[in-house]
């Protein structure tokens, strides 16, 4: 955990989403793993939690994908190359290492970054990505042809019409090794709950979202009930095994 400076090198936008590439020399920041995030300065009082999309430790590059939905994310979306930001991180645990087992990577909307990051480091053929959104504008063209991925949209404007659940069923049908795969997910809570519901048999890790005050464990703003007691999403998570989460045990959150 560090308080560090990031320099914006490059920015690309796709409808309401921007991909920001920052430079840093901070070693700890570049040792980040999929599922981890940084708290980024965003002209708001509190910094904003944003997952890492990609990292290149040789060139010192850190990439983030920002979906503008409010004040802070709009500020980040509007940044121009050359800008300097203060950040705190890297925060959070990471998705576990599948150690070669097949894994389904389900990302919805701005929950795609950890999935993309994973797709860059997991061994080929062991994973398949499902990328869901409401429509075409939500699906950022991140994945090249060589990365096995399926796109689903609610309105059918791109890929399969339907949700990520449908996408996963399709993948399972096409390649039975995924019927007993690990499931990693990140996205809106309804999506994650639908996945838990549809695939109760899968060992399912998900990255949770909570309104965060600090992002490094001191404010207790971001808690979630688990079978192991109340946990802080920012440092005990954001990745949890869904079987440990309160919502599977009758809790509100």
């Amino acid at each position, binding site marked *: 955990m*560090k308080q560090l400076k990031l320099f914006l090198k490059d920015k690309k936008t796709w409808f309401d989403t921007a991909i920001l590439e920052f430079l840093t020399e901070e070693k700890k920041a570049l040792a980040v793993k999929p599922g981890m995030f940084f708290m980024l300065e965003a002209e*708001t009082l509190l910094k904003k939690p944003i997952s890492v999309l990609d990292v290149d430790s040789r060139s010192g590059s850190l990439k983030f994908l920002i979906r503008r939905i409010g004040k802070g994310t709009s500020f980040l979306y509007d940044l121009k190359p050359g800008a300097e930001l203060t950040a705190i991180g890297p925060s959070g645990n990471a998705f576990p290492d599948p150690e070669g087992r097949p894994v389904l990577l389900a990302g919805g909307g701005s929950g795609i970054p950890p999935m993309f990051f994973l797709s860059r480091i997991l061994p080929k053929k062991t994973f398949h990505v499902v990328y869901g959104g409401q429509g075409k504008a939500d699906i950022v063209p991140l994945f090249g042809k060589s990365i096995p991925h399926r796109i689903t949209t609610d309105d059918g404007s791109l890929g399969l019409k339907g949700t990520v659940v449908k996408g996963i069923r399709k993948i399972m049908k096409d390649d039975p090794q995924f019927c007993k795969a690990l499931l990693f997910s990140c996205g809106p809570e309804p999506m994650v709950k639908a996945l838990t519901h549809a695939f109760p048999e899968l060992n399912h890790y998900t990255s949770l979202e909570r309104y965060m*005050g600090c992002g490094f464990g*001191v404010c207790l703003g971001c*808690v979630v009930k688990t079978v192991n007691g109340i946990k802080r999403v920012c440092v005990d998570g954001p990745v949890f095994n869904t079987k440990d989460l309160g919502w599977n045990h009758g809790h*509100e959150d």
Partner: protein
Amino acid sequence: MDMKTDLGRGLLLKNPVMLASGTAAFGMEFEDFYPLEKLGALVTKGVSIDPIEGNPTPRIVETSGGMINSIGLQNPGARVFVEELLPQIRKHDFACVVNVFGYSDEGYKKVVEFLERSEGIDGYEVNISCPNVKHGGIQYGTNPEMTHRLVRELRSRTNRHLMVKLSPNVTDIMEFATACEEAGADSISLVNTLLGMAVDIETRRPKIARVVGGYSGPSIKPVALRMVYQVAKCVSIPVIGIGGIQSVKDALEFLLVGATAIQVGTANFYDPGIGGRLADELIQWLNRHGIDSLDDWIGSLEV
């Protein structure tokens, strides 16, 4: 530059910078940002005799120039504090003030009695002002007689430094300060959070689950500064200033109106290095302005 500041009854701080309760957990997370030894003191998250789960989420929301929280005093209880957390804190050389809380006189007495058995605690900050607890809590901080009674009870139970933390949600803050002083408090810290609320017009719902929460951050500074000024004028025990401090300028303002020390709260969240930095910057600023010691600055406002 002499930066030592004496809060009384053995609580001598190496400098006036403290981290405020509930904004620094039990301190450990800040080791990554600066050597904790830089701090004058750490005030722990509120500790109660039994563990408290706290309130449902969302517990936090940002508003213009501040934030509202409704954590609900989540804490692991006094036993876990003493056995697991205190030993960690005691690895570092700074004063450790334990913020204590109970739902009744009984609850407060119990937690203090329990903590009295442990070494390594330099003082208590009695939170009589937390707005986030449904049953009890708040009425202490808004009733001077109850405040007086509670402080007297706790005074008779400890020889450690007894700091009382006041709520700003009252008509006359001086009445409470006087009650605390008369009942034997060693110092007074203020302010806790203002009661505030935020709603979402799109969902038509409150932005935090418990509807009303505690408002903190830069926006509350003018109110906090006014109350610290009023209290410092009316009591003779030390006053610790809290509320919206995010720069050395802010810290100097509280000291100028009469605070003997200051606590940094919300700013820890968005600027975790602030505690260590303030300690340095205070010295630099006073030096640059030809002021020989912290004592010369404290309370030197000309009205």
